[in-house]
């Protein structure tokens, strides 16, 4: 080929075309579908803060937030919830759909583990509640105190993980993060679960 301009223009056109096909067109189609469903509430201010902690600590690299259709895996049977729909993410920016399940899907974690105590203990050291877990411990989200102050949230720990003296209390980031997890609940009913995903799966 002899024309540099032809190559550059052709290459640019092709990329624009691709963006039109797989980003713009589906987004146009989704405009109505991604309106928040009736059952979905916006995150509380504390949960929104917690969502930033979730992003900052990179939870997304091991946890997806997209239960799939039964034809693609037993997500529902595992208690991870119904297949998610676009509207479920109406308040999510940046999106946190994730691409790994080194740990379980978290879109409905609030339903499975609704206890703040459990969440805090688990964050302090996951192996204190599940010996097989390979999730990192997050001791830097907590503080060791000789005695709990009136407003402190004390973490319940089994003897092996508890400090010899004093107590472990949650820092603000831990409280916010747990609040976010406690608001991850997309089990409200939705009108249309995209059945198209079912038809073509597994072919």
């Amino acid at each position: 080929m002899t024309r540099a301009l032809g190559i550059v223009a052709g290459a640019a056109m092709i990329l624009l075309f691709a963006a039109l096909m797989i980003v713009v067109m589906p987004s146009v189609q989704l405009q109505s579908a991604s309106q928040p469903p009736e059952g979905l509430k916006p995150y509380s201010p504390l949960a929104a803060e917690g969502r930033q902690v979730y992003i900052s600590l990179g939870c997304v690299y091991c946890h997806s937030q997209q239960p799939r259709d039964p034809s693609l895996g037993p997500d529902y049977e595992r208690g991870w919830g119904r297949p998610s729909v676009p509207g479920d993410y109406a308040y999510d920016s940046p999106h946190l759909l994730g691409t790994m399940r080194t740990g379980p899907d978290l879109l409905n974690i609030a339903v499975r583990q609704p206890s703040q105590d459990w969440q805090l203990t688990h964050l302090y050291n996951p192996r204190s509640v599940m010996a097989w877990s390979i999730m990192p411990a997050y001791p830097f989200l907590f503080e060791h105190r000789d005695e709990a102050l009136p407003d402190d949230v004390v973490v319940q720990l089994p003897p092996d993980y508890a400090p010899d003296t004093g107590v472990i209390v949650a820092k603000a980031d831990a409280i916010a993060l747990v609040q976010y997890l406690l608001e991850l609940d997309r089990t409200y009913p939705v009108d249309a679960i995209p059945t198209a995903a079912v038809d073509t799966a597994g072919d």
Partner: protein
Amino acid sequence: MTTAIAFLLAATFLISVGGLALLIWALANDQFTLGERAASTIFGPDEIGQVEDPATPTAALAEMQRERGELEEASAQQTTVFEARAEADKSSGWPVRWWLASSLVWLVVGSIFGVIASLKLHMPDWLIEDAAMTFGRLRPAHLNVVAYGWASMAGVGVGIWMIPRLFRTELVGGHFAVAGAAIWNIGVAVGTLALLAGFSDGMEWLEFPWPVDIALVTGGALAGVPLVLSLLARRVQHLYVSAWYLLAALIWFPMLFVTGNLPSLFGGVEQSMLNWWYAHNVLGLWLTPLGLAAAYYFIPKIVGSPIYSYGLSLIGFWALALFYSQVGLHHLIGGPVPTWAVTISIVHSVMMVVPVIAVSLNHHMTVANHWRLLLYSPTLRFVTAGAMMYTMASVQGSLESLRAVNAVTHFTHYTVAHAHLGVYGFYSFVMFGAIYFILPRLTGHEWPSPRAIGAHFWLVFLGFIIYFWPLTIGGWLQGLAMLDPARPFMESVTLTEPYLIARSVGGTLMTIGHLIFAGHAWFALYGVGPLREDPALFRSRIAHGPATT
């Protein structure tokens, strides 16, 4: 919905027919000069048949030439070509030094992040006191450092070095690229510290905060200036295939990077589509063209024979552009996005077989005719291994996008292994080879230690095998366990442990290889190695010293 599909099908059909018509017009009007003559533009007169690898010690190079077949004496015409080429190399020397030396630093930093992150998956209570050292921060730090620090900087450096040779001119405006390297480095450094400190944009491949994005856009634009200026000053009629890839990458990357980082363009599910359109295109339309541009230049250059079929390279290029640009949504198979859009991506992923076969045939057939040269040339060994892993990674990628396969592999370590086969096995191996070729041309000195080159090759090659296969197998088993409702989720976690340990072992070997490579290159840049007898060839008796001094 049905209307939308009908519209898309009609649009696709019309565009295909239009594209075909354009192709026929172009062929009829000789817009493509194909064939042996065009493929030979990277050679001087009478140069075909002559092996070249500055990374091979002079004595071994003589051996290598005997293997390839003896040549008659160099003509006077040839001498002029070599002198021009030495001038070309001299003109690109400083920008290339900057981009390549920086890339080596990032290679080492990124590998160390990678190894620590890998160890943490089977040693979860190690290094937990500091938030900066948590897995969720080291992993994006690893990815961004190797993608934007190592891979991009190496690719730009190799690209800048090829430009004057491809256009038969001196590099025009090289100082822009030097400034670009400085700004790009600051961007990657600040971005990495920001990620470790917890400031992340939250989307994979797009984690760097916005001030860093601006630095990368500025640095990248400055690096693009010499490409454009040299293009305008070119003294070749035909643009060689490597130049097509470089030109396309030059326009693709800024389009992708700017669009991907535009704030609040989308939220929710729409954003996930933009995210993966971007992320896969960074691989397909930025790193892949840079890697292929290098492979298309170095393979024929080293074996002294034009590329196997120049017509195929044309198909490979345009098919890559058409198909690779639309594969991104296979990262969202089964996700809450329109199925038809995902299907488009799957179809294009499978269609990628077309450019891959075209490119692979070209590379492998060119080497196959002279495979014994692999024994002599370190560059050829790296680039050929890289080209083979390109074929493997691409075919694997096409298969992986099929729904039946994807259901198993989607959320597992299998995908991680696949990503490394592409970016490491293919791209990084090609860049290693290219740097072995280029550095002696920059400094006029041979590599100080052929043994260190061998150690680097075997450490990263065996290390990568130990990395790739266990992770692939472990990931597959993990996927099967997750698909079986009778097995608790716990099993999918615990069964991966031995495979994750193997990955750490492989990754450590690779990192040791990188340390040897970077240290060796450091000495080479300081001119520690023996002086090269002449810039281009051992056999010609040209009386004009090394390429650069």
